[in-house]
């Protein structure tokens, strides 16, 4: 390799290394500081400033969904396994919203309840055909296996 090409390669390599290190440091800092969501236990521990709008993430507890008959008001309990939190919401819920599904609600705390202005459903990374899921559920019921916990990344 001739010296000019070697020099160009070194310069480009150094610049790339510098940018790479800067980005890596930025990413490390951001993973520590930027939280897309808080879980109920973090909220109860007081990690969220009062009156702040934030995202609450958790799994919808089984049998906790209460719908009002005369309005779009919905109440449900989210859990992260360690703590529960009641969420209140007026509006249309996404298709994937159901029991034992991860949801992300945006809103703020009001007297120990979380009043949401937006509720998003989080999808997990598994894709299963309906017949396989039914067969698995049947087998689980037959052998009295508890539902496998949904894959969580919280």
């Amino acid at each position: 390799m001739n010296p000019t090409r070697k020099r160009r390669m070194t310069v480009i390599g150094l610049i790339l290394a510098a940018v790479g290190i800067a980005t890596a440091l930025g990413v490390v800092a951001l993973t520590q500081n930027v939280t897309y969501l808080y879980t109920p236990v973090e909220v109860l521990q007081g990690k969220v400033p009062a009156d702040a709008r934030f995202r609450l993430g958790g799994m919808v507890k089984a049998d906790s969904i209460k719908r009002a008959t005369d309005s779009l008001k919905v109440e449900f309990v989210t859990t992260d396994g360690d703590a529960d939190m009641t969420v209140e919401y007026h509006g249309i819920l996404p298709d994937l919203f159901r029991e034992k599904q991860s949801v992300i609600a945006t809103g703020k705390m009001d007297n120990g309840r979380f009043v949401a202005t937006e509720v998003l459903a989080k999808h997990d990374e598994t894709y299963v055909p309906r017949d396989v899921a039914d067969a698995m559920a049947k087998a689980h019921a037959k052998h009295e296996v508890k539902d496998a916990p949904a894959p969580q990344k919280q």
Partner: protein
Amino acid sequence: MNPLVLWFHKLGSPPYFYRFAGRLVPWFWAAALILGAIGLYGGLVLAPKDYQQGDAYRIIFIHVPSAWMSLFIYAFMAVNGFIALVWRIKLSETLAMAAAPVGAAFTFVCLATGAIWGKPMWGTWWTWDARLTSELVLLFLYLGVIGLYHAIEDRRQAARAAAFLALIGIVNLPIVHFSVKWWNTLHQGSTVKLFGPSLIDSRMLWPLLVMAIATKFVFAASLLSRARVDLLELESGKEWARAEADAAEGRA
């Protein structure tokens, strides 16, 4: 010289590449069409419904291959940019610049299909989570490379400046890929894994992989067509380009 190395050197010469690519392009389009038809039929008709999303999940047969291509093409562009910067090979400059609009298109398709799926499933078109934001940054990087290339008068200088931007932007690729691991995101984690079992049923997986190969051919065909035109323009003063133009006129 080793015949393979000799062939590789010959491929670097614009007239040789022009003719070689011209022969490949129709085959690549044919492969893309056939594989795309098989993949879409497999995905939209043969694959069973998902247990939670029903039919709505079928958008992954477009969304996921596009997302893979957005990263793949960026890496291709950056590698060619690197070669262009160090060895000043004209063909690499042309290939890097011809890849950018194709990559931008795939990135746009990925973002658009994601938004269309996100509205009914998540409940929102858009959210500023790490995966979505880093993919949007990738689109802006593509647009930046295209913009910079067209902002400078001298074609070869323009290509080198844009190649430099493309090369720097490569730091975004691992961020896009690992964003779902490093942060709590609304976007789900990776389903198809290179190492370890994939979290998708095999009846849904094969159309996805066929589509991934089909999009590779779309890219290859599109890239070679674009590169041929760019080379002809770049070398318009040279004898071979004039001969090609005359031959094309004779055919018309």
